């Protein structure tokens, strides 16, 4: 569904993403993990059209989308959430989602259809009871849900979820992870899920891609991932230095 080949993104002389390639299969949940600063969010922002790629190709359903403006990528069927929620604070919760439902898909629905779709999505994420309130009533978990609702209202085929668990407590994390699983089951939406903590994510994802310092260091099943010496090293640091010799192709 999504095929990333040799993707690089430089900011001046800083190489945020270096020659990364991976594919996302239709219908899967792919976990994209790595420590802070490993380039996960940068890859997201390049795929979603916020940044232009420095090199490489991004094929979505066979069409090259690298460098297209963000609104066009949205119309092609890629929805995204932001790591730090970006609600429209002057609009009500419902209006936030109505805007996404109306502008997000092409061709555009009517105003009435957009409103209906927004209400539907709000009830899916569990915000229907506060639909007409201002976004001030939402806490961290509520803002994450609104972020997800906006992305879903654009009717994506592929959802890019940027740290949907960030800032949530243990119980909220489980709920959010269940919600992502339900979105895949019930709406058939393929998901790429970025997170820097592994915990809950590992129980839900089908495959994992691990990044470190802008490079891909692992791709495979969650079970194999936690066994991989390079992955454990980048997460646990050089305390596991003894294992380092067993990895001749260390990336740094």
């Amino acid at each position: 569904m999504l095929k990333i080949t040799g993707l690089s993104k430089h900011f001046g002389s800083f190489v945020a993403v270096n020659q990364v390639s991976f594919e996302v299969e239709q219908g899967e949940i792919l976990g994209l993990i790595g420590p802070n600063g490993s380039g996960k969010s940068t890859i997201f922002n390049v795929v979603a059209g916020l940044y232009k790629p420095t090199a490489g190709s991004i094929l979505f359903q066979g069409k090259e989308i690298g460098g297209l403006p963000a609104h066009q990528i949205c119309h092609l069927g890629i929805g995204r959430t932001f790591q730090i929620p970006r609600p429209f604070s002057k609009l009500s919760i419902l209006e936030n989602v109505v805007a996404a439902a109306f502008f997000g898909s092409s061709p555009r629905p009517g105003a009435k259809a957009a409103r209906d779709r927004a209400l539907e999505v709000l009830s899916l994420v569990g915000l229907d009871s506060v639909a007409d309130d201002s976004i001030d009533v939402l806490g961290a978990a509520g803002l994450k849900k609104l972020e997800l609702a906006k992305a879903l209202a654009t009717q994506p085929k592929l959802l890019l979820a940027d740290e949907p668990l960030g800032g949530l407590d243990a119980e909220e994390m489980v709920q959010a992870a269940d919600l992502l699983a339900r979105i895949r089951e019930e709406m058939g939406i393929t998901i790429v899920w970025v997170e820097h903590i592994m915990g809950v994510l590992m129980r839900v994802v089908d495959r994992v891609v691990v990044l470190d310092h802008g490079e891909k260091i692992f791709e495979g099943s969650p079970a194999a991932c936690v066994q991989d010496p390079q992955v454990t090293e980048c997460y646990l640091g050089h305390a596991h230095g003894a294992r380092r010799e067993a990895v001749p192709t260390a990336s740094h």
Partner: protein
Amino acid sequence: MKRNLLFLLGVVVITAVLLLIGVPVYTMHILVQVLLWGAICSGWTLLGRFGITSMGHGAFVGIGAYGVVLLWNHLGITPWLGVPIAAAAAMLLAFAVGYPCFKLRVVGRNFSLVTMAMAVVVQLTIIAARDVTGGSLGLTPKAQTSAPLLALQFPNKNVAFLFALGFWLVVLWVMTRLNASMTSLSLAASAEQEDAAEAIGINVAREKLKVLLLSAAVTAVGGALLGQYLMYINPETLSGSPVSLQILYASIAGGMYTVLGPTIGSGLTLALTESLRVLFGTRFIGAANTIYGLMLILFVIFMPQGIWGTILSKLQGRTSRRARSLL
């Protein structure tokens, strides 16, 4: 909808009463100007209320006023055609300035500065082309005495009033339509979170450009009617920075988040200018601008919703920044 009809009925009744009892010519003269400036300021708020602060709408007023008079005086093209041509010219300038600004995300004070420069360029161009425009001395449309309406001229103040009122009502209607539209939702969203707005599929540059073009057209038509009514146009009073700032003062003072605020603000600024003129004559020339400046500072700090906005929010116990009702 019901409130809008009630409002319209009220306007019709007041107009009928005013025309029947016969208002003094001077009062009529002020009313016409309040309505035209009110419409111009309302045109400015179409964009201004979303934090896109143009400090150059004087350019559109100037293009409207000069476009119509130049076409009439030099080419004999009737203002009935001149008005749409001038409005199109203003939209063309708005596009030339707005497209690169919005594509390159020139926002906030940078957009204000770009538009301010635009107004200065238009004003200086008018002054420089003095052979055609009369330079800083200004220009008078050739009078059409036999059938003034054919040349959109208003020797009769009552006729001028009806024209101004009609135009003003159309602008208010455009304003309420825009407020209730998805375009308004998209601009309110992108005013603070442009990336997030793009991410949900909003083509932010295009939505902004749409409203800028509409705003430029409204302002240009207002400028054209004002020139036709006053029968004298001058680069100081109908184009350039002073006019741009005057539009800003009136809109902010009246309340740019409400539908009637810009008109109320125009009424206040005109009342101020006129009373200073009557009280002090020419001894105190330029005082109005000083007072405007002081007013603007006070309003921005203490009453950012403007007079009408503050009254409404007190009455309704709300502080909506996107007023949706006609009031």
